[in-house]
């Protein structure tokens, strides 16, 4: 099916944002907050981090000014969209002693404006976890089903990005309602493609001019250039098998000597889905509440069973995390659990780099195989 492709200027982007707001969506986009690019509600392009970018490296993140008024001239910040679809803390059940459930507040209808390709890929991965593996999670489904997604292609990959190695960027990946490409030559323009029926309807209502082929070609060139400027790469050939084969490697202890088991990486990761349930009771004992909170395989309690934790060493916990991301995720969900967004590298206080650790394990496996 050929979907419409239109050209917009910045004023057109503003009309698009306004139109989504008018249709009842809470429009969430990248915004500046606490010295990072995070996410917040917006009502016009003015609320975006206009003219900002960032420097990212292992354990490093710094905002800097750009020399232009780009709307999307940066990569990803510390938070991912999972905060909205799989909230860090959410009441999943509330009831009385007879187990009669009380009604919970309905979630907002979100439009996510400025979802990067790696983030779109991460959302599709979490769709599989929460909706497609036999059971469907109410919390996630109620937020996801009506969400409108505006994906934005990347032209300024960050220092820790490696989506090109993971096949999840910098060009758009499937799943969004609209895909925006920003072009920053003499004229500041945007190419907007519809990716779904809902996206088509929005474009039709916007009444924008169809994009010319040379403009579309320019947008494609921007993405191709970006792929060549990735901060990092990861050779995934044989990686899946290598990580499980190296389960008893001594290298895990070496990584564990650096890892603080702080769980920053799992909190920042857009695909990590683990959560725990906490139970509480109202003061009069009548109403019980079950609250779901993000949890992390880096915590000692995560694997607790009566008698003690099963993953007592930091080595076993780091191994669990990286093996899940890059190996066992394939067995469970048919894809990698890593989309190459680089967050776990940037936000690791000691700068542990998943691409470096995976590469070292792969090299170790290859040399053991060769000998």
């Amino acid at each position, binding site marked *: 099916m050929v979907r419409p492709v239109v050209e917009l200027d910045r004023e057109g982007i503003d009309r698009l944002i306004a139109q989504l707001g008018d249709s009842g969506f809470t429009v969430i986009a990248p915004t500046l907050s606490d010295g990072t690019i995070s996410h917040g509600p917006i009502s016009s392009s003015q609320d975006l981090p206009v003219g900002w970018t960032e420097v990212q490296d292992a354990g490093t993140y710094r905002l800097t000014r750009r020399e232009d008024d780009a709307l999307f001239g940066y990569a990803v910040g510390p938070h991912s969209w999972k905060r909205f679809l799989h909230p860090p803390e959410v009441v*999943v*059940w509330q*009831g009385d*002693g*007879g*187990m*009669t459930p009380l009604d919970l507040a309905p979630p907002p209808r979100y439009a996510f404006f400025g979802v990067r390709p790696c983030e779109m890929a991460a959302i*599709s991965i979490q*769709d599989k*976890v929460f*909706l*497609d*593996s*036999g*059971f*469907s*999670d*109410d919390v996630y489904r109620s937020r996801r*089903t*009506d*969400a*409108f*997604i505006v994906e934005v292609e990347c032209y300024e990959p960050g220092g820790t990005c490696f989506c090109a190695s993971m096949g999840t960027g910098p060009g758009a990946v499937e799943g969004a*309602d609209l895909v925006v490409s920003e072009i920053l030559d003499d004229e500041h323009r945007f190419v907007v493609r519809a990716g*779904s029926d*809902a*996206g088509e309807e929005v474009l039709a209502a916007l009444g924008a001019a169809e994009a010319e082929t040379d403009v579309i070609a320019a947008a494609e060139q921007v993405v191709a250039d970006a792929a060549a400027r990735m901060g990092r790469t990861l050779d995934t050939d044989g990686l899946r098998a290598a990580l*499980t084969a190296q*389960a*008893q490697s001594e290298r895990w202890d070496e990584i564990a000597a650096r890892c603080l088991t702080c769980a920053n990486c799992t909190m920042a990761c857009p695909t990590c*889905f*683990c*959560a*725990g*349930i906490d*139970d*509480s*009771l109202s003061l009069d004992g009548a109403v*019980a509440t*079950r609250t779901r909170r993000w*949890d992390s*395989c880096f915590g000692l309690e*995560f*694997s*607790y*069973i*009566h008698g003690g934790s*099963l*993953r*007592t*060493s930091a*080595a*076993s916990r780091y*191994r*669990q995390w990286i093996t*899940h991301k890059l*190996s*066992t995720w394939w*067995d*469970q969900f048919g894809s990698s659990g890593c989309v190459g967004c680089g967050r776990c590298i940037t936000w690791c206080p000691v700068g542990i780099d998943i691409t470096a650790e995976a590469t070292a394990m792969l090299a170790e496996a290859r040399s053991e195989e060769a000998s």
Partner: protein
Amino acid sequence: MATATELSIPQLLDPMPCVVRAVNRETHDTITLEVEPAEPYHFEPGQITMVYKHGVGEIPISISSDPDRHDRISQTVRGVGAVSKAIIASHPGDVLGIRGPFGVGWPIDQAEGGDVAIIGGGIGLAPLRSIVYRVLNRRDRFGAVVILVGARTPKDIVFAEELREWGSRFDIDVNVTVDTADRGWHGPVGVVTNMIPRAPWDSSKVTAFVCGPEVMMRFTARALREDDVPMDKVYVTMERNMQCGVGLCGHCQWGSHFVCREGPVFRYDTVAELFRIRGV
């Protein structure tokens, strides 16, 4: 917007109210609760439920009752911590929340036409009790049925009365051993694996169902191998931290397995490798 798949599968995150109808004391720290579910209940031996005590918490517990009975289910609980102790303090008439049944049970059909070995350590006997009921309901389909039980002391033997009852039948062989005997004990002393070489089954025709602490299962598998029982005829059940039962919370992962979904029962030869890795 249309990408999220709409599923018709029912939500299994709401606890179903179940009224406690009977509380039977098994040992000093273990009771069997008989509960009446709000709706007829269907499960396979070896499956678990998440049992919720109002405001206190929720824990994974095996179903220990007759799988061919649908109006009542029994769960045998050992009080070891906050939630399990609150659950064993239940009285008839109390309401507990139950979610499930979850997971994959024992493949009892695979044992049809051959012998059945049921080997349990401690509270591990709970999920095995359902097998005994199922096998007795269809006794003519199986050859020899042998139950081997290990307990720490005679006081820790669960289902003692039923074990005696089954032991008095001619069509089941029941053997109980304890690690440490007391004055009244006349049975064997030692670990459960000691009884395997002399067990009256045909090693080439037996299917073994094993539940107990991880080390016990590992040593039992080894003893069965030495007894020439093929490892693809040995089933074990794994214990992991569980918070959801449906593959969403991530806690129960064991290698690539979600124990709540692909387990808790596993065929031994498919997981033998994982048993060898510490902290996996």
